[in-house]
């Protein structure tokens, strides 16, 4: 919810005044649409989180082709070393991208995409749903931990003083991710372009006033969300999402992810004061038929990497206006299974895109893939994902006290930003 400016629950406005007085309300508007652009400081990029749900296979996406053990564990599934058309696209002589992820070479080669490997949350769970909560709340000790809201929520709280808009964060989807659990001034928006008040314009002010007056006393999330919704309609309605012409020949894929990143780019260019956008991508839980070259995984990677490349190109002139992190709840088992898929694993690859990122490199303390190197059969974690996020928050979003975001974590520099 938007923090009440005076904290008085007994407002002087009567019910009837609310219903009849839309003109008065209009005249006292605190948040006129689209005036926030100038207020957003140049040093505050929009944080974009792309969460790959179901455990993306980082050993396919960012293949360690320099580690020969991989090919023993995955005789049929491993992406081959660079060379043949179906081989990896080399990144640094040791790691390479799956061919379906080749569009990521565009920002990587330009030095704006950093990859961190053997990365993740150190908790031992192999349950998706347990892992979502622990990773997105930012505490591997849960349910015994000390936090009860999302890491992005705490980031918003820590930067509350810099807020310039009643809509601070958008979950581009139907349901907010756990990382935004408990956040205020935050809404799920499945389709930016249709975030419009329904019904006849003539009665809209009266109906909206009735909605505001009745939702106001309701507890979070519903009551504040209703007020935030009414406050935010003008912000999104002022942007022509359908007419947004991507810059630099960027071509977004015709997928839900493509549309959401395209709309996010339009939002960033419009400078609305929205500080966070999250996007979820389902479908990565490929226990069977991984299909790294032309199958299921390749289709997912193709969509993801094209969408990210288009987003990057579209915002080439706005590199410092965003920072995008892309991660998944855990990786997949090193050894392939007999269904041509992989089961739940541990360490994974993670991506950071944007200006001010030390891109063009894969940051990894590679633990190795020999049987003795593995963590219960899985890629070991040598970089805590909180170190990556923490560095992004400190270096790019101006968060000074990282322990407020990830309590009880001792930060280790990664070098990503």
């Amino acid at each position, binding site marked *: 919810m938007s923090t009440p400016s005076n904290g008085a629950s007994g407002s002087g406005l009567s019910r009837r005044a609310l219903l009849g007085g839309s003109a008065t309300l209009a005249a006292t508007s605190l948040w006129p*649409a689209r005036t926030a652009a100038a207020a957003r400081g140049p040093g505050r990029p929009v944080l974009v989180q792309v969460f790959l749900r179901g455990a993306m296979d980082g050993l396919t996406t960012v293949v360690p082709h320099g580690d020969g053990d991989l090919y023993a564990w995955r005789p049929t599934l491993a992406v081959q070393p660079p060379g043949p058309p179906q081989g990896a696209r080399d990144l640094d002589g040791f790691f390479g991208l799956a061919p379906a992820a080749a569009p990521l070479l565009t920002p990587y080669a330009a030095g704006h995409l950093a990859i961190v490997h053997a990365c993740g949350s150190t908790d031992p769970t192999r349950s998706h749903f347990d892992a979502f909560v622990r990773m997105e709340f930012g505490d591997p000790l849960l349910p015994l931990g000390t936090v009860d809201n999302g890491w992005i929520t705490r980031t918003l709280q820590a930067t509350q003083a810099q807020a310039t808009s*009643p809509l601070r964060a958008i979950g581009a989807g139907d349901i907010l991710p756990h990382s935004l659990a408990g956040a205020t001034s935050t809404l799920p928006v499945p389709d930016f372009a249709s975030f419009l008040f329904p019904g006849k314009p003539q009665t809209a002010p009266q109906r909206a006033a009735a909605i505001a007056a009745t939702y106001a006393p309701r507890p979070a999330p519903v009551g504040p969300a209703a007020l935030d919704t009414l406050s935010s309609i003008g912000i999104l309605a002022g942007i022509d999402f359908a007419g947004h012409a991507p810059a630099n020949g960027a071509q977004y894929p015709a997928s839900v992810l493509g549309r959401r990143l395209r709309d996010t780019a339009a939002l960033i260019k419009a400078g609305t004061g929205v500080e966070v956008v999250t996007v979820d991508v*389902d479908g990565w839980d490929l226990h069977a038929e991984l299909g790294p070259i032309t199958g299921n995984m390749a289709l997912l990677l193709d969509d993801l990497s094209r969408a990210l490349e288009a987003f990057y190109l579209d915002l080439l002139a706005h590199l410092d206006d965003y920072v995008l992190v892309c991660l998944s709840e855990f990786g997949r088992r090193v050894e392939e299974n*007999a269904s041509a898929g992989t089961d739940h694993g541990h360490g994974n690859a993670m991506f950071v895109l944007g200006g001010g990122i030390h891109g063009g490199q894969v940051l990894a303390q590679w633990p190795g893939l020999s049987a003795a190197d593995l963590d219960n059969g899985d890629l070991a974690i040598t970089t805590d994902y909180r170190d990556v996020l923490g560095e992004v928050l400190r270096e790019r979003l101006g968060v000074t006290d990282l322990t407020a975001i990830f309590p009880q974590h001792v930060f280790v520099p990664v070098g990503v930003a």
Partner: protein
Amino acid sequence: MPHPTLPSRTPSRLEALLPRGRPPRPDLRRRLDALGGPPPAPVRRPLALLGRLAGTGLGAPAAPARAPHRDPLLTLVHRITQGFERTEYERARALGYDAYLEEQLAPESIDDSAMDARLAGYTTLALSPKQLYEAYFADPGEPYFQFKGAALLRAVHSRRQLQERMVEFWWDHFCIDHNKGDIEFLFMADHDRLKVRPHALGSFPELLSAVAHSNAMLFYLDNWLNVAGGIQENYSRELLELHSLGVHGGYSEVDVKEVAKCFTGWTLNQDFASPNWFRQRFEASAHVAGDKLVLGQVIPALPPRDNAQAVIDIVAAHPSTAAFLARKLIRWLLTPTPPQALVDQVASTYLATNGDVKALLRVILARENMRWASPLGAPRVAPRLRRPFHFVVSLLRTLGADVADPIYPLFYLYTLGHVPFDHVQPDGYPDTTAAWGSALLPRWRFASDLLAPAAVFGEPFPGVHVAHDAVRDKLGFAGPADRPGLAGRMNEHLFGSTLAELEVGVLQDYIDAQPTFGGVQLYESIALGASLPGFQWY
């Protein structure tokens, strides 16, 4: 920066089994486009300025003024139906609390021939995977949308309301994604008709076993590929985590692997010549030999076919399963914050009755427990938010709507993120206020578009006929002279007394403020009432 487009999917093990190839994926938006497209965007920038309210101090959270207690029978009707409807409530009152509950607990005794007649054209619901594949492999849209549409129609129109409510619960508990591999639709009708519905109010262990051996689940969680020499643990993990013990229910990663071994060999009949093609089948040669150890109990190697059932017997009798299911059912039927004493009581009933669902429901739905189920939250009781599906269905039910074609209601469920059977992950659509409580605009939009369709469609809402005369009759509304007290009558007769006093007052003020008040304004007012916070809970 052009990159070559990927070729279509690689021929896979699955496709080798599909003699005519993989069917295309149906697309709701495309289907609507063919019908004339989804509704155009409503008011483009209506009230950029109303946002001001957020800063007026009205946003301070406080308990709404409300009556914490209501008639237990009214609460029961709210809880065991897919939405309050006045004539149903009057019928329940005539029967009395216990008789109405017992009637709903015995769905086979309820004449539902009108529902059957309504579904007479939904011929694909009774087809086997083979029949579906042969008839619809080129264009699976028909069975796909019939299946989704039937779920909506049954929720709105079936007289076996508690049965429908439990079927919805089990479809989330044993969630299966309609879109998996583009062929999951082949199995869904079998699963609903042969596995879920017969056991929805029966024995949980039998339901668990039926689902474990169901072609739809074998395909969705990949157990059809689980073979000796190639253990596939996707199903075994979710069986323990989501279907029975719960994630903290006391199993280990070793248990996950051992359970997977027990299920090796349970696969799909892959003989296309057989009428049972793509139904479940046990392949003894693919089963892992030897004894297994699950949750500390030895499962003997022989007979291999019974290993899976032995796992079901162990987990179904486990106290963690009893507690997990008890809590989840209480959440579904009463409150998001189940009282521990009631959880314990339901869990012991589970163990004492070997998981008899009716016995569990009788305990949960006992008259005295209705105090845990106030829509507005009695002291220390959290209210239950309608999920989007329940919101849409409730509104249709209370308006006496005749849903001739469910496609547009399905479209609005799409905008609400709650199309039946479209949840990708195996945990089912969430059932929490935290998950659904922030997305309100699509609810307001559905209410407005349904009841004030002229603004959007320029015609009645397609495929749905609101019972105008019945609505006016319920409201005692013949014309503008009947405005006084109208909001209160709406609350009582349409919204099942879910609106708080403040809301009734605000709604009446809105009604009184309209310069003219005919049918159009009446329905706009109902839409507004359904958009107010009270109607979002039940």
